[in-house]
């Protein structure tokens, strides 16, 4: 294909996206579109799967049977969400195994938030409220993304995810109305999770070189800073209802902007965790790899069984 022909195809492709048409798996797409989507969708899938790990500890430690059921259901959803996303990525020509390899070898990233430890039961509430809250904000924006399978996965995920945030907030409401010790746990969890939650939206727009291209492809409907601002504005009143303080002395309503002003994120910490030096990076990856390796015999046995059954059918047919 000549350069001119390629340019024309790319222009037609962009025009389709501008007209709000969806791109489907077998359609022509620029190689960069394909690769960027494989990267983003697979890392999104990895985040769902690794996101189950900080919660795993608390299944057996949930304070009541009701809370335990809700937590189990949330974690099961996350497994499901990982599957929707892996399937969407596979439509672009990468295999499931390749994606697992990339995760296990450390080549692929997942959301850094899951490299922080979940120390108390209040963390389960705070993760649901802030971490799922931030994720939902991002995912709602992504429902309108241009790649059909990704967009459909987002719609399904958003439908299911709202319960995650509510069950988290409900845990905190109960504790915030409990003993002084329980209230202190809520505040402590807030102090530890607030800044990492704001980091979930990624680097500042000025330091995010891919933003422009992603906006063109509708892989970003809102920039990192816009989503972060939206998150802060939405969360402050919710924190007030819980009667807890947000650990930021620069946080203040700005009447002129009609938004909250807030302090600077510790970007050194952000990059440290992204590069693998967070409190739990190693532990999370080890847990993932160990689960995969220990499951080998199960996967092999399932294949052996399927082959045996298939052979039986052949014999019967003869």
């Amino acid at each position: 294909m000549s350069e001119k022909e390629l340019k024309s195809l790319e222009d037609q492709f962009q025009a389709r996206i501008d007209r709000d048409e969806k791109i489907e798996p077998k359609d022509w797409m620029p190689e960069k579109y394909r690769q960027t989507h494989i990267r983003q969708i697979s890392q999104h899938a990895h985040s769902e799967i690794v996101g189950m790990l900080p919660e795993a500890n608390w299944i057996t430690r949930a304070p009541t049977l009701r809370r335990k059921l809700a937590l189990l259901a949330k974690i099961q959803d996350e497994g499901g969400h990982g599957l929707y996303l892996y399937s969407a990525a596979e439509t672009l020509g990468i295999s499931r195994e390749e994606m697992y390899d990339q995760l296990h070898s450390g080549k692929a990233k997942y959301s850094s938030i899951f490299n922080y430890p979940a120390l108390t039961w209040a963390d389960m509430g705070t993760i649901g409220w802030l971490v799922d809250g931030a994720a939902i904000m991002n995912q709602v924006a992504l429902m309108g993304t241009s790649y059909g399978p990704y967009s459909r996965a987002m719609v399904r995920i958003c439908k299911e995810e709202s319960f995650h945030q509510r069950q988290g907030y409900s845990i905190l409401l109960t504790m915030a109305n409990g003993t002084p010790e329980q209230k202190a746990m809520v505040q402590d969890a807030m102090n530890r999770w607030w800044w990492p939650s704001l980091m979930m939206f990624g680097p500042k727009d000025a330091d995010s070189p891919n933003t422009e291209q992603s906006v063109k492809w509708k892989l970003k409907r809102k920039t990192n800073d816009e989503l972060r601002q939206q998150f802060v504005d939405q969360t402050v009143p919710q924190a007030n209802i819980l009667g807890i303080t947000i650990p930021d002395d620069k946080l203040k309503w700005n009447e002129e902007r009609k938004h909250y002003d807030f302090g600077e994120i510790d970007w050194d910490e952000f990059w440290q965790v992204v590069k693998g030096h967070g409190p739990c990076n190693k532990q999370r990856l080890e847990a993932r790899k160990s689960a995969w390796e220990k499951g080998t015999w199960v996967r092999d046995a399932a294949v052996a069984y399927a082959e045996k059954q298939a052979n039986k059918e052949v014999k019967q047919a003869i």
Partner: protein
Amino acid sequence: MKNWPLWEVFIRSKNGLEHRHCGSLHASDATMALENARDVYTRRMEGVSIWVVPSAQITASNPENNGETFEPAIDKAYRHPTFYELPDELKHM
């Protein structure tokens, strides 16, 4: 995973409606595909019936041929009821 084929999942949300494609998953055989589909796609009463089909068994049209495949229908307006002009006195038809 290499040997676990991909399956397409179709769900009937309630009797009276058709099965609709809702996604795909890997499974070692049809029984496992059905069981996994139940866990992945009907956790909130989304279905009363599930079909699973090996993805490799699906033959799909090629979007590059969309022109010759679908465009001939564009200039066949006479296949639509609104193509036919009828007198105003005719109230229902």
